[in-house]
C-alpha cells in the first residue's frame, strides 16, 4: 500500500504538468463544491450567537412548515419518477425493439424537452388549463379551473423528464445481448413470455436507474413548482421563499439540507449500487443488429401510444408558440409582434447576459470535464477516487442548494464574489461539467490505453499526447459536454436566482418575474427567442468542434480483430 502511494507520488513529481492539473482541479472542486456544501451544513447547526447546536436544527425540523414540503417533494418525485419511467420505457422499447414508422420523428420529439428553456411547459399548462385556458374555459366552459397544484406539476414534470428515462432505458435495451432473447425464442418461449421472463427482468437495473434519475430531477426542479405549484409547497421553492421572502437564511439552509439528503441518497444508489448490477453485456464483438418485431398486435398499439405522447408534447410547445403572438391569451387572440418587441427592448440585456455568461462558462466546463475524465481514467495519483466522486457529486446537488451554498460561502471575505459574473461563470462551469466527465470517461474506457502509450514511446510528452491523441478521440464526448453545458447555463434558474445582481440579471430570471406579474405572452415570446438562441448556438458549436480536429473516421481501438 505504502509502496504504491509512494510510487504514485513519485509519478506526480516526475510530471509537473500532471501535478499542476491535479492541484488546479482539486482547488476548484474544493472552492466551488465542497466549501459551499460545508457552509450550508455548518450554518444549519450553528445558533445565532455562533454556538454549535443540533438541538435548534432538530426543533425547527419537527415543525410542520418543514415536514410538509419534504413530504410533498418526495411524493412528487416518486409519482413523476414512476410515470416518466413508464413512458420512457414505452418509447425506448418501441424505438429499439419494434419496427415502426416515424422513428426519427419520435426520437426528435423525445429530445425537445431536454434542450428547451424552463417554464415553457408550465406556461402551456396555464394557457391550456388555466382560468382563461383554451381547453378548460373555451372548450369545456369551466369558469373556475384551478391549474395550480400537484396534478399540473406531475403532468409538466413527467413530460419534462421522461426523456431522461427514455435515454437511460434505450442504453439498457440496445445493449442487452439479443442472443439471450434469441436463445429464449429458440427454447420455445412465446414473444410475450420472453418479454416477461427475459427482457423485463434484464432491464430492471435500467428501470431503477431511470426512476432514480427522474426522482432527482423532480426533487431539484425549481422552475415548474415556482410557477404552478399553488399551495402545494416543495422544498426547492420553499427554501428560496424562506430566504428571499422571510430573510431566514438558517431556515433556508436547513431546507436545502433536507433537499440534499434524498437526492444524494438516490444518486449514490444509482451510481454505486445499480452500476454493479448492470446486466449489460459488452463483449466488444459486434452484435448482429437484432431483429425488430413486426407483429402488428405489438407495433400499432405502441405506435399509437408514442403518437399520443408526441402529439401532447407538440400541443404544449405549439401553444407557447401561438401564445407569443396573441394580444391577451383567452380574451383577445388577435396577432401581435408586441411581445417580441418587449423582449428585444426591455428583455434584451438579460438575454445578452445569459448568452455571454453561458458562452464564457461552456469551454471551461467542457475542458474541465475532459481533463477530469482523463485524469481519473488514465492517471495514477493520490486522491483520484475522491476527485471522481466530488466532481460527479454536482449532478446530485440541487441547484437551490448550490445557490444557497454559494451565498453563504462567497458573500464575505475572503471571497466576496456574490453578484459577480465570475461567480456565475464558475457556478455554471462546475455544475455543468458532469455530462462531459461522464461522456469523456466512457469514451476513454473504450479507447485502448496503449494508443496513448504508443504516442508516449514515440517521444511525445503528456501534454502533446493529450492534445494530439486523446482530445481528438474525445471529440464526440467533448462536443456533447459543450452542448449540454451551454444549454444548462442558458436555462439555469434555481442556482442563479440567488446569485444574480442588478448588473448581471439573466433571461430565465426575467421570465420568472414575468410570471409573477402574469405577463404570460411576454414570457412566451421570451422563451421562443431563447429557443432560437440555443438552436443557433448548438449549430455554431457543432461547426467549431468540426473545425477543431482533423476529420477521419473515428473508431475506438486500433485493431478490428481485437479479442
Amino acid at each position, binding site marked *: 500500500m505504502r*509502496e504504491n502511494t509512494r510510487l504514485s507520488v513519485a509519478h506526480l513529481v516526475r510530471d509537473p504538468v500532471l501535478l499542476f492539473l491535479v492541484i488546479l482541479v482539486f482547488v476548484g472542486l474544493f472552492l466551488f463544491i465542497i466549501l459551499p456544501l460545508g457552509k450550508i451544513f455548518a450554518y444549519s447547526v450553528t445558533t445565532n450567537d455562533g454556538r454549535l447546536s443540533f438541538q435548534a436544527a432538530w426543533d425547527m425540523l419537527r415543525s410542520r412548515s418543514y415536514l410538509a414540503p419534504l413530504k410533498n417533494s418526495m411524493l412528487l418525485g416518486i409519482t413523476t419518477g414512476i410515470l416518466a419511467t413508464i413512458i420512457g420505457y414505452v418509447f425506448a422499447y418501441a424505438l429499439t425493439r419494434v419496427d415502426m414508422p416515424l422513428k426519427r420523428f419520435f426520437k426528435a420529439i423525445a429530445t425537445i424537452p431536454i434542450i428547451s428553456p424552463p417554464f415553457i411547459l408550465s406556461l402551456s399548462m396555464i394557457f391550456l388549463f388555466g382560468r382563461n385556458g383554451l381547453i378548460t374555459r373555451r372548450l369545456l366552459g369551466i369558469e373556475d379551473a384551478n391549474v395550480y397544484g400537484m396534478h399540473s406539476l406531475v403532468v409538466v414534470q413527467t413530460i419534462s423528464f421522461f426523456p431522461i428515462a427514455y435515454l437511460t432505458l434505450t442504453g439498457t435495451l440496445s445493449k442487452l445481448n439479443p442472443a439471450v432473447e434469441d436463445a429464449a425464442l429458440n427454447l420455445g418461449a412465446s414473444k410475450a413470455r420472453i418479454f416477461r421472463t427475459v427482457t423485463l427482468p434484464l432491464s430492471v437495473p435500467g428501470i431503477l436507474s431511470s426512476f432514480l434519475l427522474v426522482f432527482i430531477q423532480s426533487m431539484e426542479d425549481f422552475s415548474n413548482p415556482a410557477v404552478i405549484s399553488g399551495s402545494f409547497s416543495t422544498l426547492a421553492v420553499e427554501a428560496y421563499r424562506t430566504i428571499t421572502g422571510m430573510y431566514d437564511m438558517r431556515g433556508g439552509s436547513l431546507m436545502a439540507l433536507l433537499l440534499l439528503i434524498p437526492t444524494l441518497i438516490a444518486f449514490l444508489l444509482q451510481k454505486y449500487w445499480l452500476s454493479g448490477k448492470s446486466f449489460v453485456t459488452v463483449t466488444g464483438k459486434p452484435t448482429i443488429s437484432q431483429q425488430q418485431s413486426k407483429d402488428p398486435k405489438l407495433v400499432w398499439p405502441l405506435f399509437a401510444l408514442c403518437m399520443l405522447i408526441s402529439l401532447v408534447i407538440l400541443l404544449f410547445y405549439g401553444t407557447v408558440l401561438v401564445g407569443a403572438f396573441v394580444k391577451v391569451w383567452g380574451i383577445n387572440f388577435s396577432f401581435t409582434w408586441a411581445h417580441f418587441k418587449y423582449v428585444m427592448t426591455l428583455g434584451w440585456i438579460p438575454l445578452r447576459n445569459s448568452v455571454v455568461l453561458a458562452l464564457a462558462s461552456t469551454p471551461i466546463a467542457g475542458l474541465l470535464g475532459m481533463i477530469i475524465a482523463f485524469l481519473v481514467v488514465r492517471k495514477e495519483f493520490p486522491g483520484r477516487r475522491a476527485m471522481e466522486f466530488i466532481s460527479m457529486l454536482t449532478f446530485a446537488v440541487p441547484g437551490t442548494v448550490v445557490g444557497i451554498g454559494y451565498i453563504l460561502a462567497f458573500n464575505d471575505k475572503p471571497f466576496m464574489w456574490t453578484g459577480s459574473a465570475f461567480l456565475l461563470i464558475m457556478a455554471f462551469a462546475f455544475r455543468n461539467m458532469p455530462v462531459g466527465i461522464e461522456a469523456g470517461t466512457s469514451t476513454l474506457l473504450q479507447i485502448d490505453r*496503449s*494508443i496513448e502509450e504508443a504516442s*508516449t514511446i*514515440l517521444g*511525445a510528452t503528456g501534454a502533446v499526447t493529450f492534445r494530439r491523441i486523446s482530445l481528438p478521440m474525445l471529440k464526440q464526448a467533448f462536443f456533447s459536454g459543450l452542448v449540454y453545458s451551454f444549454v444548462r447555463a442558458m436555462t439555469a434558474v434555481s442556482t442563479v436566482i440567488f446569485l444574480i445582481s442588478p448588473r448581471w440579471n439573466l433571461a430565465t430570471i426575467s421570465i420568472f418575474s414575468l410570471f409573477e406579474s402574469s405577463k404570460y405572452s411576454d414570457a412566451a415570446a421570451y422563451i421562443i427567442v431563447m429557443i432560437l438562441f440555443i438552436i443557433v448556438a448548438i449549430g455554431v458549436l457543432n461547426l467549431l468542434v468540426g473545425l477543431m480536429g*482533423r476529420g477521419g473516421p473515428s*473508431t475506438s*481501438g*486500433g485493431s478490428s480483430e481485437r479479442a
Partner: protein
Amino acid sequence: MSERDFSARSSNVTLIDLTKRFRSLDGSGEVLAVDDVNLEVKTGELVTILGPSGCGKTTTLRMIAGFEYPTSGSILIGDKDVAKIPPNKRGLSMVFQSYALFPHLSIYENVAYGLRVQKLPASEIRERTERALDLMQLTTMAKRYPSQVSGGQQQRIALARAIVIEPSVLLFDEPLSNLDAKLREYMRDELRKLQKRLGITSLYVTHDQSEAMAISDRVVIMKEGRIRQVGTPREIYAFPQSRFVADFMGKANFLEVEVLGIDGESARIDIGGKAFIVPRAGKVRPNSGSALLVVRPEALRLISLSNAENEIPLRGCIDRFTYFGNIARYEVSTENGPLLIESYNPEASSIFEEGDNVGVIIDFESVRLLPPENKEQQ
C-alpha cells in the same frame, strides 16, 4: 535508399537485479511480479521472453519501456541507466498487442507521428516516412485510415511507425496474437526477416512457444517472475534444465527412474527392473538416487509385443489414437503412468488401434535426465 539507416542507433539492453512488486488485489500483501531478473540483450539480437500469463514478461517489457517503475534493480540501454528517464525520452519503440494505431490519423500520419513529435524538418519527415511506408509495402494506402485496412496491414503500420524513429531497442508485446493462424505464421517470418535485415535490437514477449522458436536468437523462459532458463531455441527444447521448461516448451513425458550409476558422460538407469544407458547424464549425480527422465513424444516408438520382449522398457495399452495425417498421436497407459507418443509420417510404419497392447521403445539418444526436484521448484 539504404536500410541500414534504420538501425544506426541500435544498442544493447542490460537488466540487473530487476524487481517489481505490486500491491496484491485484496490490498493485504504484495505480489512479486518480477523477481531479480538479470539479462543481457546484445546489439542486433532478437530475444523472446516466453512464459504463461502472469509470469512477469509483460511487466518486464513495460519497465524497459518506462511505463512501470522498477521497485529495485536497474535497466541499462547501451551503458546508460534509464531509471530516471521518462518513457518518451528513452529512444525506444514498441509494437503493441492491439497495434494501438491512432484511429483519427491517416496511415501516413500514423507513421510520421514520432518524427513530427521530434520536430524534425519537413523534408526529412517526408523522406523517412515514405521510406518506412515503402519498406512495409504501405505506400499505396498511405491516405487511408487504420479502420479501413486489414489486420495484417494494421500490423505492418504499427511496425512502420515503430521503426521509422530509428529506435535503439524495439519492444514487441505479443504483436501477432490478434491475427489468424495463417497470417500469424506469415507475419512472424516477415518480422524476423526485417529485424535481421535492419539489425534492430529487439525484445519480444509472447506466450506462443512456436512463435518464440521461429523468430528468436535466444529465448528466455519466465515463470512466476523469475527467469527459468535462457538459451537458443534448440538449447531450450533439447536441453531443458527443469521440468517446467521441458513441459512449457513443447510436449514432454516425465518418467521417474532410478539412477544406478554414472559412467563418465553417460548414466545407467533402471526402468521397471531393467537397466538402460542414457548417453548424457547432465547434472545428475551418482548419489542422486532417483531422477526425472524427460522424453519428448517423438522420442518414443510403439512396437507390437511379439517382437523381442526383453529390450522393451515399457509396455502398455493404447487409450486413444488421433490421426492428424502427418502425425499419429497415441495416449498409452503404462505401469509408469500415461505416455504421449507421436509418430511422424505414420503411413510409413504400422498403425495401432485403441485397445491394442503395445511395447514402447525409448530413443535414449534424445532423452534428458534431470535431478529430482521438489514440487515448489517446478
